[in-house]
């Protein structure tokens, strides 16, 4: 009886979330892919279904010949989409590097802080994450506008004479992404640095290594897992970011998340937006798998 109960319990614990994720996470991707192969129609929903579930296997094979790759061809023909993909990767890449350059010293400083202070510092890094993402991006509009607070301040202290044009440029996007995702960079780096065995660094210094070279030869290499996790946590969502380019980037900046949104909401072209999403997913599969392996390794270590 107990064995039966135990087996039932373990089955339930696995099957319920498994089925949920299959249905609400994995199956939708196949639907996206299916619709990306269909053609647009002025109807509700606005596409012509390619293969339905009712046709069975023979219907499925019969219809394979009718598949349209037109949407994908369309994406390669129109420079807008290719530019949007490339510019998204570029903006996300630059922002990730900037976030690392800012986030690493912060994480390092936190890890070296007096032990009693660390929980408070940790909470202060996490706290912005609990306040709305939309609000935090919105706060930057008033700061970066030509007549905004940053320009008022810089002109007030006499550093510049003419206002800096930051909003609606790529710089606004870098600032917005670094600001919004900085905690994701700081936290994993901090947790690897905090666990670091300090006797290794002492040994290096005892052997005559100056602090800077001890840092580059010992501390930094040991913190690489945290750096990798942090970079992935910033880079992957930033590539598909929508809110930041929409609010801070204006019409002059190009990112694929915004293109997809416009294609879907303004042009109501579902098949093309599904094709945009499919390609975005294919681009991100490599970093996502990379991230998952790192995550699984961390899980193994914790065991």
């Amino acid at each position: 009886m107990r064995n039966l109960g135990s087996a039932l319990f373990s089955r339930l614990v696995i099957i319920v979330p498994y089925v949920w994720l299959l249905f609400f996470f994995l199956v939708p991707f196949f639907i996206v892919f299916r619709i990306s192969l269909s053609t647009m129609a002025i109807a509700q929903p606005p596409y012509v279904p390619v293969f339905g579930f009712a046709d069975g296997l023979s219907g499925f094979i019969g219809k394979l010949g009718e598949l349209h790759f037109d949407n994908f061809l369309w994406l390669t023909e129109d420079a807008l989409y290719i530019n949007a993909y490339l510019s998204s990767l570029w903006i996300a890449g630059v922002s990730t590097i900037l976030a690392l350059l800012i986030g690493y010293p912060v994480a390092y400083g936190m890890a070296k802080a007096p032990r009693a202070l660390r929980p408070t510092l940790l909470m202060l890094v996490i706290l912005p994450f609990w306040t709305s993402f939309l609000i935090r991006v919105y706060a930057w509009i008033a700061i970066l506008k030509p007549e905004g607070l940053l320009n008022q301040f810089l002109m007030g202290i006499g550093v510049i004479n003419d206002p800096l044009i930051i909003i609606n440029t790529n710089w606004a996007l870098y600032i917005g992404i670094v600001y919004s995702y900085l905690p994701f960079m700081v936290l994993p780096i901090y947790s690897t640095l905090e666990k670091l065995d300090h006797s290794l660094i002492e040994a290096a210094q005892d052997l005559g290594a100056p602090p800077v070279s001890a840092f580059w030869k010992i501390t930094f290499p040991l913190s690489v897992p945290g750096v990798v996790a942090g970079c992935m946590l910033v880079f992957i969502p930033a590539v598909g970011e929508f809110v930041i380019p929409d609010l801070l980037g204006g019409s002059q900046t190009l990112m694929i998340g915004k293109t997809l949104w416009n294609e879907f909401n303004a042009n109501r072209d579902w098949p093309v937006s599904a094709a945009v999403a499919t390609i975005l997913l294919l681009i991100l599969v490599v970093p996502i798998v990379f991230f998952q392996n790192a995550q699984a390794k961390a899980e193994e270590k914790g065991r």
Partner: protein
Amino acid sequence: MNNTWSRFNIVSVVLGFAFLYLPILLLVIFSFNESKLVTVWAGFSTKWYVSLFHNQGLIDAAWVTIRVALLAASVATVLGTMAALALVRYTRFRGRLLFSGMVYAPLVMPEVITGLSLLLLFVAIGFDRGFWTVTLAHITFSMCFVTVVVQSRLLSFDRSIEEAAMDLGATPVRTFFQVTLPIIAPAVLSGWMLALTLSLDDLVIASFTSGPGATTLPMKIYSQVRLGVTPEINAACTILIGLVAIGVLVASILTKRRAVQQERDERAAFAAG
């Protein structure tokens, strides 16, 4: 890791935190601005808070958001805790690799993809968009965050306590509810709070999966922000920030008190033994 806290370390921490907090602080300050311009200070006023409470559209949206978030966070916590148990306790079952993939991928998946794919699912199965579709979407993406939080607690869990309970004749279900759950409760609670804030905060997934009559607060704020920055939005944001700050403060005081209590209990147990 410990060494001297050098001047460079202090400066980088202070500057980093200034960068994180200054924009939020400015937003809060300008919510009390008399002028309609958000960038020119014209004296202290609370009039934007008063006008906020007469904005029925915003209040309705807040109500929808709270109902969605409470429901979604609670279901996501149950599902996410189950998934964490499955990943930590059962290292070998068919399709485990796919399962862990499906748990970790939503953490980094761009929201436009998640939103679009869920919308197309709801259309394909003929499910009318509205309150329930937003809730289902929020359950799906926030449960994975719950899993990660609970999983890290389960990994440091001393299983001998569970084994003792089983040896004494408790069924697995009873062991879970009377031994495991009370111990991992703080992690489950913080998972629930994380799911709640993720749901309260979400704009992109809600915009894709919502329908008429289910406009959430972020959607409402977003549509007003697009029309221009107004002090009224600043006031709404300040209230949200205040609520979150109070919630986090209360939670941290409770966990601290709990930790102190636990330590005292353990010491008492030692003394008695």
